[in-house]
């Protein structure tokens, strides 16, 4: 049995009153994502990440995703990154999507039925060693229990020469950017989500997102965790001051 490293780099501390422990965190997330799943594609569509399919395709191509690659999309959600991957690789049948929320998986499968879907978590990937050419995670790094454990798993399932690309929203580095970031994610998103979806669960999820963004550990620690897992040439490309694209190679 593979040893799971202790959660030395947690994305953020347990967020009370939502949950007090890591076990509770995963149950909480599955529940809130299941409840929000029917609304999530709509939220993403009108701009939750402010990016859409174009941004994801650009990030994937810049990171070296090419047709013919076997890809794993972790925490696939309703599948926006998976669909961008399929557009680039032109082979959705070679794409495996992993997600702990059943509600999210069922929504994603409606939009990209050719891919393979597994209900599983990033910390315990149910997949064989050295299987994939490329691994992606879009805006979900905050939801794992342990960054170290997650990146060890990513390193394990990638082939030699394989690449990881993690997209995330990170805190801007200047006062104006921070003010704008807070206004959009803390004040606008939960309210607009409530207005458009009329779902208290979806609005609650957006408020929770803000808390995770505010409490997320700095990018330098994410990079240290990737390097600690064995990734080489780890870089962080920053777009528009708050969209971080972490990349690394398994050599």
């Amino acid at each position, binding site marked *: *049995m*593979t040893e799971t490293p202790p959660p030395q780099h947690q994305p953020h501390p347990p967020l009370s009153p939502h949950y007090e422990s890591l076990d509770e965190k*995963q149950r909480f997330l599955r529940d809130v994502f299941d409840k929000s799943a029917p609304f999530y594609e709509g939220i993403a569509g009108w701009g939750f990440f402010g990016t859409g399919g174009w941004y994801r395709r650009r990030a994937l191509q810049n990171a070296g995703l090419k047709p013919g690659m076997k890809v794993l999309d972790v925490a696939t959600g309703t599948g926006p990154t998976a669909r961008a991957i399929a557009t680039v690789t032109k082979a959705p049948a070679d794409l*495996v999507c992993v997600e*702990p929320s*059943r509600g999210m*998986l*069922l929504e994603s*499968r409606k939009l990209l039925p050719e891919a*393979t*879907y*597994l*209900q*599983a*978590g990033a910390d*315990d*990937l*149910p*997949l*064989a060693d050295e*299987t994939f050419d490329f691994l992606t995670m879009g805006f979900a790094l905050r939801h794992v229990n342990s960054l170290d454990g997650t990146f060890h798993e990513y390193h394990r399932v990638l082939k030699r020469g394989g690449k990881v690309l993690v997209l995330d929203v990170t805190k801007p580095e200047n006062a104006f950017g921070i003010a704008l970031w807070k206004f959009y994610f803390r004040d606008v998103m939960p309210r607009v989500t409530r207005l458009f979806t009329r779902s208290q669960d979806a609005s609650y999820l957006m408020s929770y997102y803000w808390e995770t963004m505010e409490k997320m550990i700095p990018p330098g620690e994410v990079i240290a965790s990737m390097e600690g897992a064995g990734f080489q040439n780890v870089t962080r490309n920053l777009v528009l001051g708050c969209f971080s694209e972490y990349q690394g190679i398994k050599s």
Partner: protein
Amino acid sequence: MIDSILPILQCPKSRQPLTLATRAEVEALNAAISAGSLTNSGGRAVTEPVEAILVAADRGCAYLVRDGIPILLPEEAVPAPVG
């Protein structure tokens, strides 16, 4: 679909390869679910029938499949069918 991905699947806890249970084993497990006597590793009662079961090679545990989607979360594991 499951047949094609089976070679790359493994137990998320033990890393053992997974194999498909027999039709008789699936029927027996669904009977246990109907009787309310199946509990998963997370301590929750399993209440919905399954269409397939993935069993760890060492028969240490098993994972359920619903709507064509394998449920490979450690807390959702169930005891392997008795062969």
